Structures are given as C-alpha cells and as structure tokens.
C-alpha cells in the first residue's frame, strides 16, 4: 500500500484548473457578438472586406474586372446593394439590398460575389434552389 504523494495531488488539481480555464476561455472567444462583415469576391478571390457598423457612412465601391466590366457596390449601415453594373442581365441590381449574415448577391456575367459574414443564427446550413 502506497500513499498518494502530495506532488501528484498537486498535479491533478493543476490539470483540473487548466482544463476549466481552457473551457471557459474557448466559450467566450468563440463568437464576437453581432459583428457583420461584407466580403466581395471577384472570380473566387477576395478583393474587399468591410465591417458593417451601426453608424457607418454610406460607401460606394467600384469593382473592376480584368475585361473592362464593373459593378458599383453601395455599402451602408443598413446593408449592401449593387447600384450600377455593366453586366447584361442586371440581376445583381434587381436583387436589391442584403443585410443578414449568410445572404449573398451573385453577378454571374462579371463573376462577382458579395456576401455578408457574421453570427449566423439561421437554422439551415445552405439552401437548394
């Protein structure tokens, strides 16, 4: 019969403390509350990333493609929309404003994607259409 050494006990307690700290830390770091970011992708590559804040001024960005096409994007506190575009179908403009995380505007002819990233409380992972 051996006695438990005080050093062993110390190590176990230390482990428990570290584990608890790690657990609490992970939970609090996992999400930044309510932050929304607008990400603009051109042909799959990220070209802009802008944070949507409650008191930001409206910003207009012109996104030029390599072959002389363009989309003008308006970014404001209440969301993002395309206000002018050189594409043939103008579907990106007709779609209007998006403001919720998970939403996106796609301009197929110009290979442009605008999406909003953020805390996604949507119950779905994606939508089939």
């Amino acid at each position: 019969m051996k006695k438990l050494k005080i050093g062993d006990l110390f190590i176990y307690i230390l482990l428990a403390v570290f584990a608890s700290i790690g657990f609490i830390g992970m939970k609090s770091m996992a999400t930044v509350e309510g932050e929304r970011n607008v990400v603009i992708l051109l042909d799959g590559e990220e070209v802009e990333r802008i944070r949507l804040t409650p008191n930001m001024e409206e910003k207009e960005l012109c996104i030029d493609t390599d072959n002389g096409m363009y989309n003008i994007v308006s970014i404001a506190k209440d969301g993002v929309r395309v206000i002018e575009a050189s594409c043939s179908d103008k579907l990106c403009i007709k779609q209007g404003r998006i403001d919720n995380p998970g939403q996106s505007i796609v301009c197929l002819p110009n290979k442009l994607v605008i999406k909003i990233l953020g805390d996604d409380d949507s119950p779905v992972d994606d939508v089939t259409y």
Partner: protein
Amino acid sequence: MKSFRLLVSNLNNYKMCNSIALCSFDCYNIVKCCTRGDKIDYMKVKKYIVIFLVISMSLMGCTQIGMKEYTKNIFALNTYITLTAYGGRNTPKILDKAVQRIQEIENHMSTEIDTSDVALINKNAGESPVEVHDDTFYVIERALWYCNMSDGAFDITIYPIVKLWDITGDNPRVPDEEEIQRALSLVDYTEVILDREDKTVFLNRSDMGIDLGAIAKGYAADEVVRILEKSGIRHGLLNLGGNISVIGDKPDGTPWNIGVRDPREEETQLQYLAIASISNSSIVSSGDYERYIKDVYEKTGIRYHHIFDPRTGYPADSGLIGTTVIAKDSIDADALSTCLFIMGQERGLKFLQNVQGSKGICIDNTKRIYTSSGMDNILEITGEEYRLEK
C-alpha cells in the same frame, strides 16, 4: 456499431465538459480518500486516473482540434460554385484538385465551348460519330437511361428548343409556333447512337443537338465528393448553383440542414419553405423561378422558364412550380428533379419510387406540397403559406 458512433459523436460534443468532469471527479475522490484516511490502494487509483486522463486527452485530440473549415468559390458550369470542406492544412490543395476536375468536366460537356465533346457531337450531327472522353460517355449513357425510363419526359436532345428560346442567353424571346414545331421535330433521344467499344456518340440527323445542362452539374458534384472523400475529407458541403451535396454529417455529428427555396420569394435565394436534414447525399431542386423571361412575365403574367417539355417544345406546364429530389448521387438527384418537374406531381412521384434510394417533394401552383415516401422523418415545413398534403 451505430450506437458506438453515436456515443463517439456525443462524446465529441461534450469533449471539454467530459475531461473537466473526469478531472474534478478524480480530484474529489482523491481528496476524499486523503481526508477520511480510508484504506485505498493508491497505485490502483493512480492507474485509473492515468486511464481517465488518457481517454479524455485522446477524445479532445481526435475531434475538431486541427480540423478547420476551408472554402473555395469558383464560377464554372454556367453558375456559381462554393465548395466547403473540413480538414487539416492540406485541405486547400485537395479543394484545388476538385476545382480542376470541375473545369475539366466543363471543358468536356459545355455546349458553349467549341472544343468540348458535346459541341463536337452537335457540330457533327448527321455527319459522323465523335469519339468522346470517358466521363462524357458515362454522363450521356446515364442521361439516356433517364430519357428511356421517363418515356421522353427527360430528353437531352432538347438543345434545338433551348437554343430557339434562349432563356438563359442574352436574347430570350417567345418563338412562333412554326419555329417551335420545326425545332421540336429534331428532338428525339432514340436518335442518339452510342458505340461502347469505340466510345463514340452520333446524332442521327443534322441540326440535332444535345444539352447535358440538366445532369452535368450533378455529375460534377459526384466527382468532387469522390475526390474529397478519397483524400480523407469526412465533412463537407458543396453548392453548385443550388445543387447541394453533403459529405458525411456536420463536424458536430448532426445531419446537415438544407433549406428548400420558396419558389415565390423572388427577393432572395435564402427564403425557404422547408428544411431537409440529410447526411451523405445530394439534394437538387428545379423550378420555374430561377430563370425566365422577366419582361414578358411583367407584361402578361406568363412565366416562360428554362425547363422545357420535350413533348410540346414549350416550358413545362405540369402545375408544379418547384421540385426537390434527394438521392445518394447528385447525378440522379439532378436528372430526377427535372423529370419530376416535367412529369407533374402524380406521375412524377410514382416515377421517383421506381428509382432506388431517391425521394422528393413537389410544390404545386396552389402552394400545396406533396412528398414521396421516405420524406416524413427528414422534412420540416416552415413556410406558413404552404400546406403539406398527405
């Protein structure tokens, strides 16, 4: 085995809690023993503690730690594609391989690329057989199987009609009756002649043409799944212009929840009328809402959309506004959602029961939802205006 997997996934979810609980439990016992001075074999206690620690550590190690979400966005196959995979640091390389494969498929099967197998088949219609790549041959063979099974409701020789209306092109228009009849006389899948030995495809009459648009995206999704799985990816979500394929479950061990788009919410593609919970399969939708002649619709209220009925030469008018099919392989889900849309609710759902492992739903123009068998447990209706018919 199943319960074991369940156990593992549950443990995964609570990995941190577990290890803490185990640790504190150990400490509590040790302290208790020390203070009360009970006779305890401490070697044994220590052994248990070590075992506990090893188990909880390894549980922590084998889960999400070291597994990250990687996404790749591309434009191909006439649509916008998002590939999401969960894996280690080599995942971007694996996704690049998948993208290359998609581009290869596009180069073989697009009607718009002059050098593609399909463009060459169409160009040589009525003249000579064209030798094609193995994948093109496979897709055409599978497509013809659907043409046959659906008794021509699905027909890849619809291309002359597609070109005539040009719904998805730059100058969509409503052709006159005579033009439609002329184009329609060229639509007949029994005049596609395959030679399995030489891997050639021949269209019997000149001006005939094939369009794999209703099936090629499905095949591409299956190829991406194959490449990712072979490289060890166990969780993933692919979206090829609304065709969705999922690999495994979500990283947390629960099924993927996929919304079915509300066909009458034009504003955003994110409005859905139902949620389907799926693992390891593909879900594909067809409908009259995605591409149609908007000007004519605004003036007359008639929706000339992009899914044609090979028997009439006009956009399919079966009373349905949307269909969604779930199948193991995306190539099947893709073809079947089109079949279902053209065949209509009664015939279409019956047809679906004949194809093993497939199930689906259709939505008619009075906002009623009909389902095939096998949907009850995985479908939740969320659209308030829609009613599920039994």
